């Protein structure tokens, strides 16, 4: 390079830096202006903005939004984003304090992370107000769902929807014919699964390929399947995950006891009764295979039940029995509870309207609307037994009982990281790369490191 071109370069760079500084200065001023403008024009036409992922229940949420608009005159805008991108969308919004959204609905799995971040507002007073309101009937809300809304002794939100995959869906026609009842223990479950793996009906010639099909893809699918089994086998965790996952000193315990047993059982279900390549199976694959009539039973999400009974999607309409996965009698812990909850970011522009919306959306009547227009996933106990709801969703007959036993995911902000370690360990075991006990031991080590780094042992 010649001296001259170097000189030119230096000149160009200097000019650019100066320009850039000026540019950012200007945009900052412009940004400030627009923010003030937003605050000024508040009084009349408020638009409440909600961000949520595309769940089947969103159909119900839209219904509520329309009702809310009718009642209060406040416009509601629901933004649906792909589930895979929900977390970064919400986090970037609340961290930036941009106030684009008045209500955010993150997955319960990140609830602790969201609440601990300090970017959303506390609502203790609001909850006190609701508790005092007899018409609202606060005690009717499913207790498990409320767990996702409390952090460090304060209230931060209220559930917008609850769902669970602790349901056991069995083909009642097949099971009855073969003389089986609904399995009440995992041994019975295994026996039935074994019987129906590669089963051909002697009369009709109907083929059932798999006794059961269990999701085994890395991260959420395989972890949820494992935790469901762990909880149903007598495992217990409290809000922070203390119990079968780690002890009160946050020393991992999931690689022993119920955790290990559940992992062994899961491997058996994945490898022996399911399709080849268990780590390719997602919740979607699982339900599609069941709906095509090639699996005798599955443990699946209640939000998908509408699909099961839809003739354009399912070949097993009317043939399913909905109950709970096998549990140890008399113990709490019949599987995992998942949720989306409403939180109000600190930067939200319409906090009062947001609170009003939360109150409205979680009311008995509107919750019923969600269930009737979306998917069978109410947040209120009374709606589990509501005759209209049961007429629409026969699958919900046992739902109230099931939801009373569910346990929510651990409320530690590091849960996402821990899940990665667990997902890696369980999938490695599922493809036979490593023995399941050793895999969990390794995961325990990683989890220890995560807690160590986060300062839990100090």
């Amino acid at each position, binding site marked *: 390079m010649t001296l001259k071109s170097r000189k030119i370069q230096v000149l160009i760079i200097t000019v650019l830096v100066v320009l850039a500084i000026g540019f950012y200065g200007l945009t900052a001023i412009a940004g400030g202006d*627009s923010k003030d403008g937003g605050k000024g024009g508040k009084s009349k036409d408020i638009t409440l903005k909600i961000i949520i992922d595309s769940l089947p229940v969103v159909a119900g949420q839209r219904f509520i939004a329309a009702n809310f608009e009718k009642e209060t005159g406040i416009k509601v805008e629901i933004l649906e*984003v792909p589930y895979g991108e929900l977390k970064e969308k919400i986090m970037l919004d609340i961290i*930036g304090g*941009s106030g684009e959204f008045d209500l955010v609905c993150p997955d319960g799995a990140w609830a602790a992370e969201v609440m601990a971040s300090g970017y959303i507002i506390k609502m203790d007073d609001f909850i006190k107000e609701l508790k005092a309101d007899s018409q609202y009937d606060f005690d009717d809300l499913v207790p498990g769902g409320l767990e996702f809304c409390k952090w460090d002794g304060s209230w931060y939100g209220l559930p917008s929807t609850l769902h669970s995959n602790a349901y056991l869906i069995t083909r009642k026609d097949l099971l009855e014919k073969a003389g089986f009842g609904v399995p009440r223990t995992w041994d019975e479950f295994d026996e039935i699964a074994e019987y129906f793996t590669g089963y051909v009906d002697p009369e009709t010639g109907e083929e059932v390929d798999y006794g059961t099909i269990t999701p085994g893809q890395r991260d959420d699918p395989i972890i949820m399947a494992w935790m469901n089994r762990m909880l149903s086998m007598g495992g217990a965790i409290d809000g922070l995950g203390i119990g079968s996952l780690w002890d009160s000193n946050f020393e991992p315990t999931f690689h022993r006891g119920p955790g290990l047993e559940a992992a062994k059982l899961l491997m058996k279900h994945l490898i022996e009764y399911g399709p080849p390549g268990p780590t390719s199976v997602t919740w979607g694959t699982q339900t599609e295979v069941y709906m095509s009539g*090639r699996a005798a039973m599955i443990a699946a*999400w209640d939000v998908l039940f509408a699909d099961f009974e839809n003739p*354009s999607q399912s070949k097993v309409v009317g043939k399913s029995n909905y109950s709970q996965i096998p549990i140890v009698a008399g113990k709490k812990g019949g599987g995992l509870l998942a949720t989306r909850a409403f939180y109000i970011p600190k930067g939200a522009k319409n906090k009062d309207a947001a609170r009003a919306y939360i109150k409205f959306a979680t009311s008995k009547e509107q919750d019923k609307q969600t269930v009737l227009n979306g998917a069978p996933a109410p947040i209120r106990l009374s709606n589990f037994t509501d005759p209209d709801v049961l007429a629409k969703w026969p699958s919900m007959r046992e739902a109230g009982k099931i939801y009373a036993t569910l346990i929510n995911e651990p409320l530690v902000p590091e849960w996402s990281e821990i899940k990665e370690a667990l997902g890696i360990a369980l999938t490695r075991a599922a493809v036979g790369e490593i023995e399941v006990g050793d895999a969990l031991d390794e995961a325990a080590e990683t989890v220890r490191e995560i807690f160590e780094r986060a300062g839990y042992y100090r």
Partner: protein
Amino acid sequence: MILLKKRGNFKSAILNLLTLLLILLLVLPFIWLIITSFKFPADIWAKPPVWAFEPTLDNYKNIIFEKNLPLYLINSVVVAVCTTLLAIIFGFPAAYSMARFKTGGRALFFDYLTFFMFPPIIIAIPFFIFMKSAGLIDSKIAVILAHATFSIPFVVLMMRGIFLDAPIDVEEAALIDGCTKFSAFFRVVLPLAKPGIVASAVLVFIFSWNELLFALILTYSRSPTIPILASLTIEAHNIRWGQMTAVGSITVIPVVVITFFIRKYILIGFTLGAVGELEK
């Protein structure tokens, strides 16, 4: 080629067969996509795969009316076209200058390379903050600017290579004739480079059309693009295969039709020097 004709028809037939096989290999997955988009969900997961089935337009109806496909389509077209124009207007002269006059030497070349290769995942968060402070979030401008970060360097790098390969004689002739460098650029270089511009434009258009990460971070309800619609079919617990395949089919076909008409330009575009020969 002339050679092949001389070797006889047998070899030509084999080569044609190979070509046909190749086309099938490339197109069959796409045809499978189209077929799937007309299936009811129950048929999509049938085993063995079904070829004869009752067709449905439900998937298309769903994405067009319920999911509001036109909004995404218009946004995508606007974003991709603007990005392409921006990239060509800024990138093309720079590429010419770098190739012909060695402006900035290798250092400048590396500047562009550096811009081009920074991982978008890292850039995305500060870029979001920047756009936020500029009040441009959820505007097409934000997405266009984000796409420009990889499109301009792409055009520069691509066109520079093309110019380096092109013969210099026509321009020199023009300069000797008394043209200034400036007018030589507009009167000689630009027309000569047209196919090259079209070729890089098509590639930039495709990259912008398919870009997901920036579009996702920077848009909310007003300016989402097609890839966002595609990923919306991936729900938390399930994938809506029918809708996904319908989005895939609808969005590919217009681009295929366009490329069919400008195919010739794409092929000769990378080789400015050969334009004359091909047109003979």
